[in-house]
Every structure is written in C-alpha cells, then in structure tokens.
C-alpha cells in the first residue's frame, strides 16, 4: 500500500510536468488551431536558459527562474513571428511539419552550444523531504504539483475571465470573424505563443530536479505530453492537466507493477484505446460539422 502511494505521488509529479507541456500545446491549439510539435523543445530551451542564469551566472534561483521565463516568452513570440505567422491558416499538416523543423533546429543548436551532457539545476527544494508517518515525499515533487495547480488556476481564470482570454477563444473559433470584430488576431497569436513558451519554461525548470536537463529531453517529454493532451481532449485546459497526471500515473504504475518494457508503451496503448472509444478525449467537446 505504501509502495502504491509512493508510486502514485511520483507519478502525479511526473504527470504534472507532462501536463504543463501539454498545457502549452493546448494554449496554442486553443488560440490558433496550431499544434506545436516543438513544445517539448521550447521546454528544453527554457531549462537551458535557467541553467545558464542559475548554474553558470550564479543568479538567485527565483531571479534566474523569472529571467528564463521572460527570455523564453520573447523567444516564443520570435518563433511565432518567423515560423508560424506566414503559414497561419494553412492545412494543419504544413504547420505540424514547420514546428517539427523548429524542434529539430532547437535541439541541434542547443546541443551545439551547451553540449550533449546532462545538466542539473540546484533548487531550493532539491533536498528536503516531507514525512507523513512512514510515507516520504520529496519537496521537489511536491513543488511541481503545487506549481502546476497554481499555473492552471491562473490560466483558467485568464481564459475565462479576462478580455484577452476571450479574444483568444474567439480567434480560435473563427479567425476571420474575430478580425471583423476588431480583435487584433496577429497580436493575440503572438501573446499566446509567449504564454505557452513561458509555461513550457516553468515546466522545464520544475523538472530539472527530477530528471536532468539535456538536449533531447524535450523530444522525450514532448512525445509523452501528446498522449496527455489528447487524453484530455485537445483544447481543454483542465483536460491537459488531468491527461498529464493520468499519463504520469499510468507510466509510474506500469514501471512498478508490469514487466520491463511496458513502462514506455503503456501511455500509448492507453492513448490508442481512448482514441478508439472516445476520439474527442475525456474533456473534449464533440462538435458537428455544418455543411
């Protein structure tokens, strides 16, 4: 039983990281119908920025965190401007390919600049543990869970309570109509990319104590975040986090209770099953096409 709870908590913590990356997908998808295959790589780049600020320049953790988030928000806008804006509105496949290309580029360039070693960021929560009876919970895992909850709440409020959030939802529903209503769609898209890159950076920095940061971490985790986003139903913010947590728990449990090899495929098997039974995901809304 104790093992089970232990696995559950570490699964949830890992799942929260997947959820945060999936949040990035969902934010961009919600606003622009673009699926950003480079989301994991944005997370990786954010982690490296934080590593540079904290590990190499010796800044305070929180200062470095904020600096990395700000730098990545700018980078997100830049990436949107250069790669995505010219093809906004074209078939999804083109955009998927463009973002795959962007991911390739980021991964290689990071490998060329920082090298292909593993890096670790020292955080205030690196060492401590919380003991409840005989249950041992590491602070770094708890910090990830707490940060995810806070970020989700903020984003949920942002989308449903602010004008900008409403503008984003409007431009996702019908870009042309949004233009007609006076929404500056291009700027909205830019801001969405900034937010999603910032969220990805937060995920990257929170992840750093759990797994090391290296240039391929974005690909590995990004590919786990897809099932998370799909499970939750692409386009649903709570769905992304719930999906992420589910994937994390499934992976963690499969690693503990099932024979070797199941750990890596279990999320995908669950994903395929969900896609077969409920293609729109757990929280997705099924819409009918009007002809």
């Amino acid at each position, binding site marked *: 039983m104790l093992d089970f709870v232990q696995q559950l908590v570490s699964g949830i913590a890992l799942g929260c990281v997947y959820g945060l990356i999936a949040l990035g997908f969902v934010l961009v998808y919600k606003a622009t119908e673009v699926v950003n295959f480079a989301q994991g790589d944005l997370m990786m780049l954010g982690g490296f920025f934080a590593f540079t600020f904290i590990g190499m320049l010796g800044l305070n953790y929180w200062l470095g965190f904020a600096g990395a988030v700000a730098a990545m928000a700018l980078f997100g806008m830049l990436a949107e401007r250069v790669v995505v804006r010219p093809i906004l509105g074209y078939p999804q496949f083109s955009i*998927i390919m463009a973002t795959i290309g962007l991911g390739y580029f980021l991964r290689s360039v990071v490998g060329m600049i920082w090298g292909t070693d593993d890096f670790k960021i020292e955080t205030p929560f690196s060492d401590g543990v919380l003991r409840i009876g005989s249950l041992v919970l590491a602070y770094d895992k708890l910090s990830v869970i707490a940060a995810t909850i806070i970020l989700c709440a903020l984003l949920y409020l942002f989308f449903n309570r602010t004008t900008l959030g409403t503008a984003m939802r409007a431009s996702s529903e019908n870009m042309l109509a949004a233009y007609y209503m006076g929404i500056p769609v291009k700027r909205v898209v830019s801001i969405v990319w900034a937010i999603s890159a910032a969220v990805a950076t937060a995920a990257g920095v929170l992840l750093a104590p759990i797994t090391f940061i290296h240039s391929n971490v974005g690909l590995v985790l990004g590919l786990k975040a*897809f099932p998370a986003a799909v499970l939750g139903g692409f386009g649903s913010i709570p769905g992304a986090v719930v999906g992420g947590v589910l994937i994390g728990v499934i992976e963690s449990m499969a690693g503990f209770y099932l024979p070797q090899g199941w750990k890596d495929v279990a999320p995908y098997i669950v994903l395929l099953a969900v896609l077969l039974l409920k293609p729109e995901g757990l929280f997705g809304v099924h819409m009918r096409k009007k002809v």
Partner: protein
Amino acid sequence: MRFMFKTDYEDDIKLFPHSGYIVTYGVLLAFLLIAPFVLSSYIVSQLVFVFIYATVGVGLMILTGFTGQASLGHAAFLAIGAYSAAYLQQFNVPFPVYFLVGGLLTGVVGAMVGFPALRLQGIYLVIATISFAFIVEEILARWESVTHGNEGMRVKALQLLGTTVSRDSPSFYFLCLAVLFLTILGTLNLLRSPTGRAFVAIRDSETAARSMGVNVSLYKVKSFAISAAITGFAGVLFAHKLSFISPEMFTLQLSIEFIIVILIGGAFSPHGAVLGAIFIVMIDPFLTYLKDDLPGIIAGIFATFGADSVTASKIYSNVAAIASANGLKGAIYGVIIVLFVLFEPLGLYGRWLKIKLFFQLFPLYKRATFKRQKIYVKSERNR
C-alpha cells in the same frame, strides 16, 4: 511551347500526356540501366538507397498526398517488412515468397491501423500513428524469440534464381530499380482508376466525397493498406541493403525522414518522391563534404579579401569547429523543413513546374500565377 488539346476525359488521365514524356523518361531509364557499369560503386550504393527511399516516398504519397491522411508511423511499416523478410529467411524461404509475404503482411497491418484511424482527423491521426510506431518499436525490442530483441538480426544476401545477389552488386541495384519502377507505374495507374479518384476526392473534401457516393471508410482503409504494402516491399529491400536490422533503426526519426522526402520533393507526384529521396540520401555525403572543404573555402574567401594569415587561420578553425559539431545535420534539417514549408510547400517538383511554366509562357509569365491566397480557416475542430 507545346499546346495540348484535350478533347475527352481519356486525354486527361493518359499515363503519358505526350510523346515527349516517353523520350525523356526513356533516356532517364537508359541512363539508370547503364549507371552501375559506369559510376563508382559508392554512387551506385547511394542510388540504391535513393530507390528504396523513393519507393517508401511513393507509398507515403498515396496516403498523405492523395488521400490526405497524415502518418508519422511509416518507419513501423518499413520495420514490419524488414523483419518479416529477416525472419522468413531463416527458414530458407525463397526470396520471391518472402518478398511478397513481407509486403502483403505489412499491407494487412496497414489495413488494421486504417480501421481505428477512420474516426480520427488531422492531429489525432498523427498522434495515433506515432503511438502505433512506438508500440511496434517496443514489440520489436521485446519479442526476442522472433526479432532477437535489441541484438538485432543479420540478413543474409538474397538468393534469386539460384544465384546469390550481394547487396552491392548491379543485380541488386536493378532489383531495387525494378521495384521502384513498378511501384511508380502501379501508383500512376491507381491514380487514374476509380480508386485513385476516390482518394483524391476524400483528400479534397470528405463530406463532398461521401455525398458523391464514395465509401469513405472503405477507401481510407484501402489507402492505408496500399501505402503500407508498398512500404513493406521497400522494407524487404532495405533489410537486404543494410544486411543487419535492429529496432533502433526504425524510430520516429526515420518516419520524419519519410515525411521530409515527400515534403521536400512535393507530395502530389511521384517525381516529388524521387527528388525528395535524392535529397535525403545526399544530405549525408554533402555534410561530409562541407566538413572537409567548407573551412578552407571560407578562409580562402576571407584571404582574397585581404584578411591576414592569423585571422584566416582563426576563421578556418572556427568554421571547422561549427562544421564538425554533432548537431549540424539536425540544424540543417530543421532549417530546410521550415524553409520549404514557408516558401515552397509544393516541394522541389513544384519549383520545377514553376520554372517550366516560366519558360513556356516566357514573356507573359506573371508572378502571381502561383501566389498563395491568404486563407483564414474556420476551426478544423468542426470537421
């Protein structure tokens, strides 16, 4: 320029629109037939890879280019073809038999993937095919009694008509060329047939196709099966060419490379698959060339513009460091993909068509002919 007057539908779907095509392709084919006897063995070996990649490219083109179903799982189909060949070879099954079995088995698996894919659209389909590829990769690594797991499998030279055909011999080259040739011919004929027209109809508008009486589900599954079968045939050849296969060869990376083949070549014509295959096979030798010669060239350019020898040698070592960095290939891939998507979504073949049209219409060519219309789509979610 040549004016072509089409008077009926038969003219529109002819395999060769006019006799010029027969001459051009005849010359190309003749050149390819004498190639192994005149070109160096290295180039011939690269050409074999071009043929195999182009075959996969044509297979993927049927699915992605003509039926509009994206797939990032074709490495898995290639793996199934390769592994079934390697497995059957152990029992001394003759080549023609395991060649056919490899392709057909992959086709059956493709149809099985096609059924669940019926309900999926766009991004969901991409992710489903990625998941399928991951599961296949894991099965290959774990099902040790058949696949030998991560140790990989050795593939013996193939036996055909009582002779051994080694992977570097001209005979193997001709075999691959024949497979590519038949694949392209078959595909062109498929696209002229009702099935091919149904594929295109589904790509352009599923709703419209359905209302025209096209059985969308049936044709989608067919498209998956045909595409997978072609990839499976290529997989058998791939296994023989490499003579050793292991699960880590058939990763997502390879699937992405196949997509790059049709993306860079152009997804709507077999020409595109061939051009894309040439591109993807040639990028490695090209990068090696860059690594060896680029620093010298750049330092030379600086030297001719008056840089002193110290600066020149500094430039040389800096460029050499960048050119030999590990990630260079990935970075170049990334940049090329992005540039093609942004500026030439029709690929190299599309570019060629534009150049051709420019000369055909010479003084009258208008830049706006191929200009993309800015489009603001309604949500694809409502599809």
